[in-house]
């Protein structure tokens, strides 16, 4: 009985922690805290997307430092990620997930414009007691040929 309740409780905690991981990801990304961002990946975690791919927190941080334009703190910031609709399937210490993302950018006339729509395909793993990205693939869905 108690074991069963513990399993159910752990499942809810896992879902909450993974959702929080997704929000920490976009928070650190938009704040350009690339060190904190890269530590959200497993020691052999992989990020892949339009700007390339990298394995491990140090390599992921270096890749983003080389490729990402600055996004100084608001109100100077130029772009904001919004992540939504997390679908999480738990399987013990592993999980798979998909998440949609929207990039809103400061456009001409200092107005917000939806610049990109995409989704993430994720594999997550519990590493040292914390959920981390084992693999995150970032896909752009609109437009077909981003500038």
């Amino acid at each position, binding site marked *: 009985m108690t074991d069963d*309740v513990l399993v159910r409780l752990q499942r*809810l905690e896992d879902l*909450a922690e993974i959702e929080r991981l997704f929000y920490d990801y976009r*928070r650190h990304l938009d704040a350009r805290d690339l060190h904190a961002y890269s530590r959200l990946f497993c020691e052999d975690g992989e990020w892949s997307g339009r700007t390339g791919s990298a394995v491990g927190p140090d390599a992921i941080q270096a890749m983003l430092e080389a490729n990402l334009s600055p996004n100084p703190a608001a*109100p*100077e910031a130029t772009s904001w990620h*919004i992540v*939504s609709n997390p679908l999480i399937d738990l399987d013990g210490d592993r999980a798979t997930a998909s998440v949609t993302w929207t990039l*809103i950018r400061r456009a001409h006339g200092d107005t917000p414009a939806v610049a990109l729509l995409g989704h993430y395909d994720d594999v997550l793993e519990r590493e040292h007691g914390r959920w981390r990205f084992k693999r995150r693939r970032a896909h752009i869905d609109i437009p077909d040929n981003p500038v």
Partner: protein
Amino acid sequence: MAESIEERVARLEDLEAIRRLLLDYRRYLDGKDFHAYAGLFAVDGEFIGGPGGTIRATGPQGIFELVDGMRGTLLTETGGDDLHIAVNEVIELDGDRAHVTSTWVYLIRGEGDVPEVSKIGHYDDTLTREDGQWKFMARTAPMDIPAQ
């Protein structure tokens, strides 16, 4: 010492109650139910917005008067013509207090009756548990685009 089952359940309940508070906020705001909106603030709760935090009010009555005065200026005159989307909340619990950051997107009925993304900003919140209910102790709502 490991957390008890009761403490772990209470933590999940707090997270869920706080998410509900954030959703009620936008629901009452967009529904122009400003009394219910103001009731989400603690007795001495504070709203801080505008350039440099110059738009501010304290306590539910003061906050009601402030937001009611935004009709036709910072908010549309009638419900259904504007919509807040509140997303990506990061909640840090600390007993009967909590700190939360989240993002807001403000959409309006634009020219030609099409939806228009009008503004984007974020919330920095301090919450307090008052009479068993999570309330806003301080909600700061800076706008990010357009720049203030």
